């Protein structure tokens, strides 16, 4: 079941163009959005959230277009630009006390559970957190308001291999609870490790949007790893 439907999303900048991006994000599946730096991953994600204005195309959440249903859709979506880069000197507790008022679905028990699971101290400020912990703080907010889909822009960038692994394990756990995870990355091993589906973007154009197994069957040469396939496709 598609939770997010992206159809013909276009955005033109003087030096870059997102060309009619179309793909789905399915319930209870992890979708890896892969492409090299500057391929259009962040533009696509920001367009999906109305942070930038697409020139064309539609984005539907839970069967309803984002336009006109922005507040309702955002209550069911968890979004992160990777690390926390806002209110660096405010305590986590103070930030959360403000944020939770916006969600009818805020679950204090879930908040406490993930706070402990992620090892976050709510008396700390984002400035005092490592990059990995900042990503977890973003996830903590999303999970505490019971987001049904997580849209994460390069959540694993800048993390050490251990933290990356931990984060990917969290994604796998969330998937079991029916949460859809859509995350962009340029680290192919992250995709290999946990993604059910792949959306591959190159120079602003979606090259493939399909289950990982189908992608490998269609594009990989015998004995070729996903990383080798991607590198070859990029060269072509």
């Amino acid at each position, binding site marked *: 079941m598609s939770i997010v439907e992206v159809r013909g999303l276009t955005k033109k900048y003087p030096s870059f163009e997102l060309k009619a991006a179309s793909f789905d994000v399915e319930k209870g599946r992890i979708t890896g959005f892969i492409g090299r730096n500057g391929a259009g991953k962040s533009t696509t994600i920001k367009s999906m959230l109305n942070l930038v*204005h697409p020139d064309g195309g539609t984005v539907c959440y839970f069967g309803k277009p984002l336009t006109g249903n922005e507040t309702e859709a955002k209550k069911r979506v968890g979004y992160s630009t990777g690390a926390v880069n806002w209110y660096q000197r405010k305590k986590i507790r103070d930030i959360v006390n403000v944020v939770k008022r916006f969600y009818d679905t805020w679950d204090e028990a879930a908040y406490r559970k993930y706070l402990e699971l992620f090892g976050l101290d709510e008396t700390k400020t984002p400035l005092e957190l490592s990059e990995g912990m900042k990503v977890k703080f973003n996830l903590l907010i999303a999970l505490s308001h019971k987001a049904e889909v997580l849209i994460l822009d390069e959540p694993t960038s800048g993390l050490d291999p251990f933290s990356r692994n931990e984060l990917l394990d969290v994604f796998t756990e969330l998937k079991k609870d029916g949460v859809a995870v859509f995350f962009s990355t340029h680290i192919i091993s992250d995709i290999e490790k946990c993604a059910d589906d792949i959306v591959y973007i190159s120079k602003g154009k979606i090259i493939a949007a399909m289950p990982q197994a189908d992608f490998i069957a269609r594009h990989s040469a015998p004995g070729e790893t996903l990383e080798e396939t991607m590198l070859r496709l990029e060269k072509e």
Partner: protein
Amino acid sequence: MLNILLKEIKLSASPLAFLFIAFGLMFLLPGYPVLCSAFFVTLGLFQSFQYAREANDTVFSALLPIAKKDVVKGRFLFTCFIELSGFVLMAVCAVLRMTVFVSAAPYVNNALMNANLFALAGALVIFALFNLIFVCGFYKTAYKLGKPFVTYIIAAFLTVGVFEAAHHVPGLEAVNAFGTERFGLQLITLAAGMAVYAGGTALAYAGACARFEKIDL
């Protein structure tokens, strides 16, 4: 609406915005251009805009389940809250000067503008200019503060000058009335100031929403 205002107060606001409300007390100063107090109140608000920008509040607000125009609404609610708090303080001071201290020598011999209802109208005009020029101007980029603030400063001090000069213009002496003299005229000028503030703020809000909607974050 309450949530977004609370977000502004608890996270985005600079403490100076609250502290500078106290400049409303300058309405008690004799021999001083009292309308400068309105400017100082807005100076605290400017600090808040600067603080919120440095804290990357726009990205934070984008995370919240609110429409883009509600981000602007929150900032306007906070701005009006501070301005009207300052205004209440100025009004209390003006009423004291118009009643209890109406015969006090420092006020009677005051060479500058008297603190009456006309002066309160002037404060509202300055607040309206802040909302129209600075706040609406800021939302053209949601980043650049300098140009709209400098433009506002020029407009604000020209307005102070015009209001201060008004009672020296032949035929307009009545605007500097003491106590409850020419009370009808004073009330009319205050009502006009209120209309300018309400209209200017509504116009500024609509303009800021339209501008912010067009910005790619």
